[in-house]
């Protein structure tokens, strides 16, 4: 499988990572190398094999429905690039 320049643009858009025109060819060639490695796996016969999503057969535990964490929003928001009145600020999205 050859990864096209369009593929690279598409996944960069999905991943929300800007790739400049100057970087494009280099990124594309490195990703092609990685997919050459990955594609070796695609030839393995896995008919009837149950996918393994996890190292252990875990079932997600449930906890009692009660408040377990204190309110630390001030501490957490002190890490943010921009906050106002307890809200995270982002560029305007609605006119």
């Amino acid at each position, binding site marked *: 499988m050859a990864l096209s320049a369009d593929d690279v643009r598409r996944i960069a858009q999905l*991943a929300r*990572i800007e790739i400049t025109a100057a970087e494009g060819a280099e*990124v594309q060639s490195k990703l092609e190398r990685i997919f050459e*490695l990955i594609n070796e*796996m695609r030839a393995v016969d896995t008919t009837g094999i149950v*996918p393994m999503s996890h*190292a252990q057969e875990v079932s997600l535990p449930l906890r009692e429905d009660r408040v377990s964490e204190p309110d630390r929003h001030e501490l957490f928001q002190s890490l943010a690039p921009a906050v106002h009145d307890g809200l995270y600020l982002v560029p305007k999205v609605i006119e």
Partner: protein
Amino acid sequence: MSPEPLFAASLAELARELGAKRVSSVELTRGALARIEALDPSLNAFVTVDPERALAEARTADARIAAGSAGPLTGIPVAHKDVLMTAGLRTTCGSRMLENFVAPYSAFVVERLAAAGMVLVGKTNMDEFAMGSSSETSHFGPVKNPWDLAYVPGGSSGGSAAAVAARIVPAATGTDTGGSIRQPAALTGACGLKPTYGLCSRYGLVAFASSLDHPGPFARSASDCALLLNAMAGHDARDSTSVAREPEDYARLLAEARGARPLSGVRIGLPREYFGAGVDAEVAAAIDAAVAELRRLGAATVELGLPAVKHSVPVYYVIAPAEASSNLSRFDGVRYGHRAASYADLADMYRKTRAEGFGAEVKRRILVGTYVLSHGYYDAYYLKAQQVRRLIADDFVRAFGQCDLVLGPVAPTAAFELGTKTSDPVQMYLNDIFTIAANLTGIPALSIPCGFTRGGLPIGLHLQADHFDEARLLDVAHRYQQATDWHTRMPEIAQRSRA
């Protein structure tokens, strides 16, 4: 008394000296800080060092020792990999994205070691977001191998490995997603343990690939690793994959008197796939010598096959990037971390923030992960990789029907020179060919030193055990270390600083 003579002491020796008041935690901590100052300009193993905080913790530990309430690790200096959150202390993950991020809470394993009384002297350098096998992708510059500063220490936990190998600290934490504890341990001559998945909570470990990430200890010996694991293991409701088990003493087998053949009854599996082409001749010779030593100690060896293990690297480079692309989506310049200075709109802010905040390797892995999870490709890549992951796990189930431990090299070669594998990501990925399977399957595995190349670089022996069989794994490593002295060898830089 000066703490300097103790810089190469074991954790048990340090506890004895502290308990007998022949040395204080403050003295040990000052010693570690002095060694950072002397050696770290050469090694670049640390990202952040906080002497005031360390000395305050040391004074608390000394008070605890004086009050008679000390445990086996109280007062002993430790360093944490900079992917583990440390409340009030900068936690960067080796990334520009988190260059100024001060963790609001501590990771479970950090809390546990602090509760045990260990003194945090600093945060160690690493491949950015733990993605790498050489500790060269850090935003804070590469870590150097203490055995030869022109060589890499392995990665991603290269700073922790180098700090332990250079005798700066007697213990450190790391994380292992595809070999990131074991491979740097091997390349620096340290000991490193990746415990069973779920044994040490991932709470506060900045996530790379959640189904593969494991915290674990670095130390100079298997017995020291056992003491650290005793403190680090335990159930934690804040990690939904944390396993609830009865607490165990992982050092319980180490002190048993067993005579000249202490490994009688232990069956060690030798997979054909670990002894073939692709393993450097000097590495292969050191592994063969270790097998002979283990036989002398009474172990029986069993030849076996792990035919699906050869697919580990491609499977890993689907699953790990897929999970990473999801986990790292949180770095968007809104809640924490870097935000681009100029942008046109919200979407542009995301794209520029992530383009500036992440390095090239992290971006590549996010892109690979995004691709394999994208519409129309999921079955061909992600689902396929999960099926091959099952085949690899089945190989180990069969192997542990025939043997107790699986043995081989940690890495195909000893350390390589800085800059020699950075231009080809796939060459770098192939370093982890022997370590990745233990992450895919979740089994415990460790690296202990078993020899040196003619050029004087350490070689690591890889031992893997069945799920939750850490006590036996550590016992076999310990018996080997009782009969050999590879783990006591020190790089010249560690001795030179002994002013």
